[in-house]
């Protein structure tokens, strides 16, 4: 069975309802749609924006590789991953994952797996820009993210 996989890396915002519709329209075999949206937080009203740097080419390729692992591992019917780069203000979306499947477990697991792998394997880096005009540091990788990835075992 062909699984629809869409990967986009872009500066522009995205329309979640439209992305869901693209995966579901005209189909009656989908029982579950899980979406994950990652938003920029202000960290207690300190941040003016996060700047997302990425490695063009590898970013798309690495997300595609992770998506194909998810397709082999769970009976998903469709996957969409959109990751933004550039300056993103608090409250705005950074990343979107949509997973569709017949039964809910595959969509939940695949979406959660994709996010864990995106966090630790997709070549993106966040830099803080503060409201007081100073440029904060680069965001440190979280140990919790590496731990979250490990729970999936060796999935390469």
């Amino acid at each position, binding site marked *: 069975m062909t699984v629809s996989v869409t990967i986009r890396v872009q500066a522009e915002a995205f329309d979640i309802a439209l992305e869901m519709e693209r995966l579901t329209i005209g189909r009656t075999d989908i029982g579950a749609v899980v979406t994950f949206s990652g938003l920029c937080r202000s960290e207690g009203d300190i941040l003016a924006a996060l700047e*997302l*740097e990425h490695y063009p080419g590898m970013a798309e390729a690495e997300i595609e590789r992770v998506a194909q692992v998810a397709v082999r591992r769970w009976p998903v019917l469709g996957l969409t991953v959109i*990751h933004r780069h550039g300056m993103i203000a608090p409250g705005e979306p*950074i*990343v979107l994952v949509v997973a569709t499947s017949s039964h809910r477990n595959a969509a939940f697991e695949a979406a959660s797996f994709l996010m864990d792998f995106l*966090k630790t394997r997709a070549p993106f880096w966040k830099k803080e820009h503060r409201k007081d005009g100073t440029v904060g540091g680069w965001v*440190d990788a979280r140990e919790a993210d590496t731990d979250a990835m490990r729970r999936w075992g060796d999935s390469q």
Partner: protein
Amino acid sequence: MKILYFAWVRERIGKTEEVVEPPPSVRTAGDLVTWLKARGEEYDYAFERPEVIRIAIDQLHVSHGTSIEGAREVALFPPMTGG
């Protein structure tokens, strides 16, 4: 061989990319980091903790022990923080 730098590695070195010709004794990705580190103060600062540096060869993640033979593009960057 084209080298790309990202995030604070890029900022510390002050370049987004450069072309280098490492000697034959530089065999692995880790050797390349060590060799670059000796090229000047800015490189020494970028690679002060070589063990935290992540490496991709031709847009694939590799370990420090991976051979760079035949590599066209090597990218050096900090741990990723996307998502």
